[in-house]
């Protein structure tokens, strides 16, 4: 498992992080004492039951929300603690669950939005860069389409490109392929592997799909139900770049079994807890 980041930017350290939501005095503990490390250039996948606080963690790293205890560091710099919260910025990009391409901008306008508002590039330069990215992944014919004219698989890829053009240290993806069918997902995985090989960012990837988790990740972090803690960290010893035939290998199946059991246990707990809550 070669981590291919040489410059060493984008290491995330999560130390004893906790989060308590308290609207109207209803005390909900979303996360408790959650600690793990993501090395620079590592592809980390987070799995766990719905509503277990994975997104809470992402929000804290991205700077959308605060935490109530613990600390989060990005490259040795404190970015989040109960006393300090760094604002969202271009070094930490988020790709959202239901997609957040601006529907009123064309594909190319979406991708060039970042460099243009940051005044990093002039318009022609940004357009060239965007077109270049699109053609590298075989999407050059769609630059003038509006997002809603595209299938959701293509929308997701455009959104990932929109994040990457800013050369962030970390890319965070919150269940980006939810709702896609098996074939479309396979395509997305190929795409991500290809992107990851050239872009060398740290990846923070949240998913519910275990095949996806093992196929993509250097490590799979399994979370418990609420309050979320780290249940288990599984290191994926598969060669990189990942190839499809790996999915039949004994190592892969062993890993899958391991992750499956751990997650299944938590999912069941969460499901039952959820029903109790509704009753």
């Amino acid at each position: 498992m070669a981590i291919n980041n040489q410059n060493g930017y984008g290491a995330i350290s999560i130390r004893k992080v906790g989060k308590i939501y308290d609207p109207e005095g209803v005390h909900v503990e979303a996360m408790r004492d959650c600690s793990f490390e993501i090395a620079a250039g590592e592809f980390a996948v987070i799995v766990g039951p719905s509503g277990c606080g994975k997104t809470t963690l992402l929000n804290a790293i991205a700077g959308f929300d605060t935490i109530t205890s613990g600390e989060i560091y990005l490259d040795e710099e404190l970015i989040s603690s109960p006393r300090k919260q760094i604002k969202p910025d271009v070094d930490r990009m988020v790709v959202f669950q239901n997609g957040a391409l601006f529907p009123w901008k064309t594909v190319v306008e979406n991708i060039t939005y970042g460099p243009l508002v940051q005044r990093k590039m002039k318009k022609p330069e940004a357009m060239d860069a965007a077109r270049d990215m699109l053609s590298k992944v075989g999407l050059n014919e769609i630059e003038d389409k509006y997002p809603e004219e595209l299938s959701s698989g293509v929308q997701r890829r455009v959104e990932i490109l929109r994040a990457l053009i800013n050369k962030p240290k970390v890319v965070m993806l919150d269940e980006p392929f939810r709702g896609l069918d098996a074939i479309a997902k396979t395509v997305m995985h190929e795409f991500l592997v290809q992107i990851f090989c050239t872009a060398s960012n740290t990846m923070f990837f949240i998913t519910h799909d275990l095949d996806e988790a093992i196929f993509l990740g250097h490590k799979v972090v399994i979370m418990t139900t609420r309050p979320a803690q780290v249940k288990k960290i599984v290191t994926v010893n598969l060669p990189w770049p990942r190839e499809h035939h790996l999915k039949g290998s004994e190592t892969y199946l062993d890993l899958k079994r391991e992750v499956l059991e751990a997650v299944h246990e938590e999912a069941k707990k969460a499901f039952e807890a959820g029903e109790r809550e509704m009753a």
Partner: protein
Amino acid sequence: MAGNRGDSAMGSDRFGEVRIENVTKTYKKKDSSSTVLQDCTFRIERGRLTALMGPSGCGKTVLINLIAGYEIPTTGQIFLNDVPVTKPDPERLVVFQESALFSWMTVYSNVIFGCRVQGMPRKEMKDRAEHILRTVGLYEFRDKYPSQLSGGMQRRAELARALINDPKIMILDEPFRGLDALTRQLMQEFYVELFEDGGRTNFFVTHEIDEAIFLADRLVIMTFQPGKIKAEIEVDLPRPRKFGMLASHRFMEIREYAIELLYEEAAKAFAAGSKSAYDLVGAIVAQKGMSQKCE
């Protein structure tokens, strides 16, 4: 359980067997016509779970509408236990994509809807509903409205609404679509257990390949426009099915084989300019292997 299930059901007419024979469905537009299904012939066997897969736009939904009797085939015929299908009937029940629960009725009213409009006596209706609600674990939730339930519970309520009518065949149109992967997995386990206990004929349409293999006895794969039957695969995983099987060799073998067949159809959809076309550019590249792309 798994072995004698088919046998015991075989003799009776309690469960149905559906034959689809040379079914073609053509829609006429102003001056052109489009054939959605062409010469489809296959059987949904008695007491078994048949899963249907195919790319989007291959006419899966039309096929369901035909079997349910909402539409009639242009040519060919569909038989349930040798009786031709002509109109909707409670013996062939559809569980719809997303939810078709009536949002203005409580869970209980939804479940007894079929019995009520068919005029079943109140006492019998109540007993049956209670039994079925306990089976799907929704007894405590019977007075709630669908919007108050979680996604997984809504799907179970819908299964209950169909099951209470004791249909000869259950038709499920992507019933777990829109649930997150983990809830979906739990629903699949719940559903497969229900199926293995009841042993009725089931026809399950999905485009999620893991789901299809995990649940089905037999897998039918359809082609893209016009929809034809491309292949039928026997799924020989043992019953009862357990989630651990998802990581078994046999499972992965069947999966790879099915994906290969589906890719071919996906590529055709691309040539036809389907909306998901651009996903398939990637699909074709992906088949060539990706090691060279990384350099």
